[in-house]
């Protein structure tokens, strides 16, 4: 179900309020909690003369205007999904809201920086050279407000390894505050070419940590072109080797588009020969956001056109015992023998289904679409009709 997670979303109703951003956890009237100073009360309307210990109040549908206590804000309807336990960053002067964490979601990710030392031609989160020194402090505060029972959380950017020791600090905070959470860090791996960072991360002893590292070819000339940085391939692979030397789990991620699909079989052979110790390989469909949207004509290819290459790559990897998956592909765009490798990989807040999906027999198993995919879709999108033959053909 698509959601908006950030942008304009609050308007001050009170006469006065904070002129700097702040991080709070959402509480509703039911929540009787001792940490009100770090919480924002979310209600339909608010009539009390004071905040009663809360940091701020968010109102969905105010009645006739009145004198609200300071830091009372009107919440835009797009954020009506917010509920107890969610963690927000409110920026009253900019009238903006940033949903950092939703307690009910399996797709929470911490955006730790927008800087990046790659410049991928299909980047869905184009880098910005902003000064984001304060971001980590805000995230540390947010982590302390998250549900201790959280089961999974991601770290993303930009390039998280640019944080250096602050990245270590973040992972340590996650280990302490969210002891049950599996942590998945998306990184180009280059920062780990220096073994000190890999050593420091390994020394934390996090019980469930995986680093997802993009690699777009067996050859540096191809990979460096896709990430628009000479020397990136060399550093990325050195980073992977260092991470594995320190017993950290690594996943390789290959985004399939017109500039990479032909190299899929060679990539799989290369992984089998040289990087057999990686923990997972994800072959991923394109998300049409950011640079991918800007470069659409150069990048877009209908998945049915690379079915042979995809099949060959999975065959090599699976045959070598490497756990592998296909992400971001609808089942109707894949050969049936690959359906067992497809995962429901799209984050909930940018995930949707289309009309053909309504009566589709495989809807439950299928991950559906990115919201952004409405720009370009495969010609093979269709509903599956349940039949005996199809069930037998499915992989166990």
């Amino acid at each position, binding site marked *: 179900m698509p959601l908006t997670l950030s942008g304009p979303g609050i308007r001050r109703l009170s006469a006065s309020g904070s002129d700097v951003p702040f991080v709070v956890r959402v509480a509703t009237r039911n929540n009787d909690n001792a940490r009100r100073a770090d919480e924002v009360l979310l209600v339909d309307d608010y009539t009390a003369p004071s905040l009663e210990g809360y940091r701020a109040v968010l109102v969905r549908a105010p009645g006739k205007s009145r004198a609200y206590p300071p830091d009372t804000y009107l919440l835009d309807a797009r954020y009506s999904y917010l509920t107890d336990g969610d963690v927000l960053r409110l920026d009253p002067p900019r009238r903006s809201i940033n949903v950092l964490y939703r307690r009910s979601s399996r797709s929470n990710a911490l955006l730790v920086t927008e800087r990046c030392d790659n410049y991928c031609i299909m980047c869905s989160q184009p880098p910005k*050279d902003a000064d984001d020194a304060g971001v980590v402090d805000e995230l540390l505060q947010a982590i302390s407000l998250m549900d201790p029972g959280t089961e999974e959380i991601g770290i993303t950017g930009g390039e998280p390894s640019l944080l250096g020791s602050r990245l270590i600090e973040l992972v340590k905070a996650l280990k302490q505050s969210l002891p049950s959470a599996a942590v998945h860090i998306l990184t180009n791996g280059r920062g780990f070419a220096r073994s000190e960072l890999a050593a420091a991360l390994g020394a934390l002893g996090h019980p469930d940590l995986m680093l997802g590292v993009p690699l777009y070819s067996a*050859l540096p000339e191809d990979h*460096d072109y896709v990430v628009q940085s000479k020397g990136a391939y060399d550093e990325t692979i050195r980073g992977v080797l260092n991470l594995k030397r320190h017993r950290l789990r690594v996943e390789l991620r290959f985004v399939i588009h017109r500039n990479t699909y032909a190299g899929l079989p060679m990539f799989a052979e290369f992984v089998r*020969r*040289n990087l057999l110790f990686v923990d997972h390989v994800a072959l991923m469909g394109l998300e049409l956001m950011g640079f991918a949207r800007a470069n659409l004509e150069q990048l877009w290819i209908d998945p049915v056109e690379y079915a042979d290459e995809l099949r060959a790559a999975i065959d090599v990897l699976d045959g070598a015992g490497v756990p592998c998956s296909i992400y971001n592909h609808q089942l109707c765009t894949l050969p049936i023998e690959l359906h067992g490798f497809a995962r429901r990989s799209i984050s909930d807040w940018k995930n949707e289904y289309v009309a053909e999906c309504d009566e589709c027999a495989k809807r439950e198993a299928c991950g559906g679409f990115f919201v952004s995919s409405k720009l370009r879709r495969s010609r093979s999108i269709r509903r599956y009709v349940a039949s005996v033959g199809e069930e037998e053909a499915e992989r166990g």
Partner: protein
Amino acid sequence: MALARPFAHRSAYAPPPGYRLLPFRFGQLDHARYLATNDVGEMVVLSRADVRAFVERRLDPSSSIYRELKAKHFLFDDDARVALDLLAIKARTRAEPIARLTALHIFVVTLRCDHACHYCQVSRQNEDRASFDMSWAHAERALQIAFSSPNTDLKLEFQGGEPLLNFSLIRRIVDRSLELNAAAGKNLTFVIASNLSRVTDEVLAYCRDHGIAFSTSLDGPQDLHDQNRPLPGRSSHAVTMAGIAHVRRSLGQDGVSALMTTTEASLSRAEEIVDEYVRCGFDSIFLRSLSPYGFAAKKGLLRSYSVEDWLAFYRRGFERILEVNRGGRVFREEFATVLLQKMYDPQGTGYVDLQSPSGMGIGALVYNYDGRIYASDEARMLAAMGDDTFVLGSLEDATFRSIMVSDQLADVLDTTLLESAPMCSDCPFLPFCGADPAFHQATSRDLLGHKAFSAFCEKQMGVLRYLIGLLHESASDAGTIMRGWIRSCP
């Protein structure tokens, strides 16, 4: 959208001019193509013109052959020196299993036998001579040696003659090894190599309870098998069939595996032999060649056919096996599987008879009924012909350590390192091959032999050319079938 900086064209990331060669070997694959291989078993098939251009540094970096050679680490240029780190990791990985040392320990519990196979390599003795049995004292010393091996895998194999004629000793050895393993904690497996004529319910009950599997001989359909392996008064094929069924009833379908031996009579019947194995419910066959030991050598069977005859037999058997696979049944050829593991598995194969340096001693040890310790199965056969080159010691006084550091073993290992052996060191098939010092000692009185005159080398190259040719035939499904075999290997 306004970009912070524009995207550069692909040409901005092209490799810098000038590449350097990484270590490789090359040679002719067939009349049209060359084969290049490196130390870690990767291979490239290319034209003669491409070989020259490659070596003369004239390859165009945008060409597909350049890209393949670079991805497989036959060349490197300045934009990815991490290639050297990867190559080093692969080389260490491939060499690592050597240090695990001896996993296979063969106990020749008796030389007595009830069959009279023409090609018998152990020069069997008749059943009733008990002086050809191993003593318990020797068996116990052998177990001490076996458990001193640092390998976490230990396979105890019982051979003879017919080992079931001394089943009481097998039982004592297995019991004692399980006792020793309570402290040692190794992965222990047991196999009895038997003609199955002496299999009883009592024997099978013990084997079932102690995880012992059987290996037997099946040379082909009945007339062929009986001709090769005469059994006075009976059909040995019928005995084998009954034995297989009997074993499977107790130990399951996988309780017994089979090996075939090729004789002149087999050469025209490759398809029938494969069909016989399929009919009997096996999922693989090892198409073996005739070895130059034992009665076979005495009777001049070695000269009875040429390597070319055997290669034609192998190809026909292999073709039949591919047909079986196309029909939907996964059925492996074992020799090809060993070679495929050398091509595709990062640690190669543990198959003792195809290693560099040879697997003698460090891969296998044979404890003979008379107390002598041999470096391999073939070494025992050679000794039976009067050549003691590969006797490593005696169960009276040897220890695992004394065997491993002995000059005798060191000489063999030293000489059989193919990377420094004449002709082998230049051969593109080296990573898929191994030393067979017993064969060369038997046929030319030299540990390495002269490869231009070696039937072993001719056979190896014949099979490898054939298999590599099949793997590179894009129109054929043979490659897919073969890669499926190593996928299903444990």
